């Protein structure tokens, strides 16, 4: 087996070296470098599109999904080798997608065969971009109090209501959406449906963020007709699907604590402060803070590996993603606080060329959402206290 894995590693390395364009082996510089795919996506370069097409054709955007659904059919061990080899070469992820990280796993578990065949391959190839219609103005942390109605009209549901904070709703092709199908039962009256954002009656209004970007929207549904075949799982049992999907969302968001391919904090500090004669960054207090942060970050990388291995072996407590999300996102916020402290007044520039349009400051502000999106840190801690620690009253 390990010999097979060695062969697989060598072949993977060769393939990546031959197929990953040089441009796609550099760290992300800004949001514009991220590939989201979808009907309306404008690729930032030919290389970005080529990389997606090649990886998509091989099923390596979703290496461990079955081949029948557009995946790579790799074992957990092979998928890990692929990740390692991509990291070694510095390959960018070819596709960033809520379809991959959230809807896909939920469909694999709860979807009908027809739904899997219809939706999974386009996700794998980056052809259809999804958004998540969960939160509503009065249903945030208390998601199950959502009010968007879906009435049974024989062959279809008629959907009316409003969602909020829907990330990229204005650029997405389809939405996975929680709707109320039974007003008398809070958790037991929610259903999980899918529909095209081009269906008549769907409209979106972007909300500007403190980072100056506008990635999320208010989304309105006015007599939207959703075919019944787009109901995932059973009627009124959508909460189970929603919770399962949230676990995957939390896993994905906790990955932020691992940091991307960006420059190290130590290097930023050396650049901004210079060094003392012995080569240490000339800012002792900050140096100590960065060093302690790196200890936590390295430990969290180990935890992530442990978590992924246990997850694949189905040995993880179902509430463990909450712990991971909490730690990972708090860590990522700290990383960017330190990046701002290290960068000083340079990092505060908002529009200048030398700050690449305020890239650090905007990324710093964006991280403040990490502990809010996908369920706040407070909610994650409540879940840990209640479901893992089994504390009374929690």
């Amino acid at each position, binding site marked *: 087996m390990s010999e097979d894995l060695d062969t697989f590693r060598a072949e993977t390395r060769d393939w990546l070296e031959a197929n990953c364009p040089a441009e796609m082996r550099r760290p992300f510089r800004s949001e514009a470098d991220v590939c989201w795919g979808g009907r309306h996506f404008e690729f930032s370069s030919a290389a970005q599109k080529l990389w997606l097409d090649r990886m998509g054709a091989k099923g390596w955007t979703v290496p461990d999904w079955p081949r029948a659904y557009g995946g790579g059919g790799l074992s957990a061990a092979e998928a890990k080798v692929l990740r390692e080899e991509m990291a070694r070469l510095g390959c960018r992820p070819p596709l960033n997608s809520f379809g991959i990280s959230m809807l896909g796993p939920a469909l694999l578990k709860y979807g009908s065969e027809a739904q899997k065949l219809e939706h999974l391959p386009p996700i794998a190839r980056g052809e259809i971009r999804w958004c998540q219609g969960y939160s509503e103005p009065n249903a945030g942390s208390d998601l199950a109090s959502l009010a968007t109605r879906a009435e049974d009209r024989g062959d279809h549901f008629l959907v009316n209501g409003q969602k909020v904070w829907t990330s990229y709703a204005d650029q997405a092709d389809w939405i996975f959406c929680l709707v109320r199908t039974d007003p008398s039962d809070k958790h037991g009256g929610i259903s999980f449906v899918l529909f095209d954002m081009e269906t008549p009656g769907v409209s979106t209004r972007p909300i500007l963020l403190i980072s100056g970007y506008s990635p999320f929207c208010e989304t309105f549904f006015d007599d939207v007709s959703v075919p019944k075949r787009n109901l995932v799982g059973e009627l009124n049992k959508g909460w189970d699907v929603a919770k399962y999907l949230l676990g995957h969302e939390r896993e994905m968001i906790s990955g932020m604590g691992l940091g991307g391919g960006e420059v190290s904090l130590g290097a930023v500090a050396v650049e901004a402060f210079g060094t003392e004669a012995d080569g240490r960054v000339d800012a002792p207090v900050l140096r100590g803070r960065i060093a302690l942060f790196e200890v936590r970050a390295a430990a969290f990388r180990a935890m992530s590996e442990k978590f992924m291995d246990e997850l694949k072996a189905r040995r993880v407590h179902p509430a463990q993603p909450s712990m991971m999300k909490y730690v990972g996102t708090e860590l990522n916020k700290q990383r960017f606080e330190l990046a701002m402290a290290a960068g000083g007044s340079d990092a505060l520039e908002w529009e200048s060329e030398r700050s690449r349009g305020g890239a650090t400051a905007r990324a710093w502000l964006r991280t403040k959402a990490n502990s*809010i999106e996908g369920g706040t840190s407070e909610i994650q801690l409540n879940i840990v206290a209640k479901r893992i620690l089994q504390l009374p009253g929690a």
Partner: protein
Amino acid sequence: MPLFHTDEQAMLLDSARPFMVEQAPVAHLRGLRDAKDATGFAPGLWRQFAEMGFCGMLVDEAEGGLGLGAVEAGIVLEEMGRNLTPSPFLATSVGAVTALRGGSATQRGTWLPRIASGEAVAALAIDEGPHHRPARTALRAERAGNGFRLSGTKSFVQHGHVADLLIVAARSGGEPGEEEGITLFAVERGAEGLHATPERLADASLASRIAFEGVTVDADAVIGEVGTGWATLARTLDMVRTGAASELLGVAAGAMAMTIGYLKERKQFGVAIGSFQVLQHRAAHLYAELEVARAATLKAQQLLDAEDEGAERAVMVAKAMAGLAAQLAVQEGVQMHGGIGMTDDYDIGLYMKRHRVLAELFGDADFHADRLARLAGY
């Protein structure tokens, strides 16, 4: 001296607070930002500052001011912080006025009455890199004719592109890193070879990089004595650092007030989110941190006004602690607002941005903690 405001100081607060709320609330900052205003503050508001007596509050009465001190300046600055009011008050009315106190009779006569009346705006050109390191000053001042030629660059100069007067720290002797050999200059706007490039910062304020390309100034532009400007610079910095601490307290208090309001109003799970004990404890903790920072800041102000030896250390404590407390306040503020806290429409994010800039200005908590350690010999 008791660590609370005197009756006179409380009266000043009673006029500064409604003034800022009415004339320069957060909407004022938003307006300037959305209009892509190129000045960085509203000149009309600055005239009103003058009418209120704020501009020259630290100027001696003989020179047209009110002859007040750091405590009073702090009262105005805290209200500015609470309302995120953009204004050249800190650099002009606190920084430049303190620096000019050590200046010649001509310098004082030329500038102080104009500052007090709101005619002149000043900027402090001290830092040269992305971090505050005043002893590292490298901008050269070479003797030329009957005066000096200044060459080098400055960074992070708030209002530097519109200031009538620049207070410039330059090196006439010694090496970067030394306190000896620093000379302060009063440089007028429009001097030949002076190029200011304003950059917009995250909080929508404007700070300039300034290039001095052989700017020649007369000998009487020197503030105090040649080569011994450090003492005046240090006094000036103590005043502006304490001022920035007050503004940070205001930012913290403003963010906290918004957050407490939201905790009472926002309902989830059928109750006000403020009824969750985890949020109650954190709100109470924030209150405690803020009270501590407030005491440290008032202590520094009083010691500065009493010209007490312990003032310098108290200033380091105040600037660092106010920065940390305000950081907690804005971070908790955004977090406890949930998704709405991430939106540009809502004000809490503006508090987060202003905190960042003020925390960096004149040395962040790391810088001051390091100085305290060095002073204590470890």
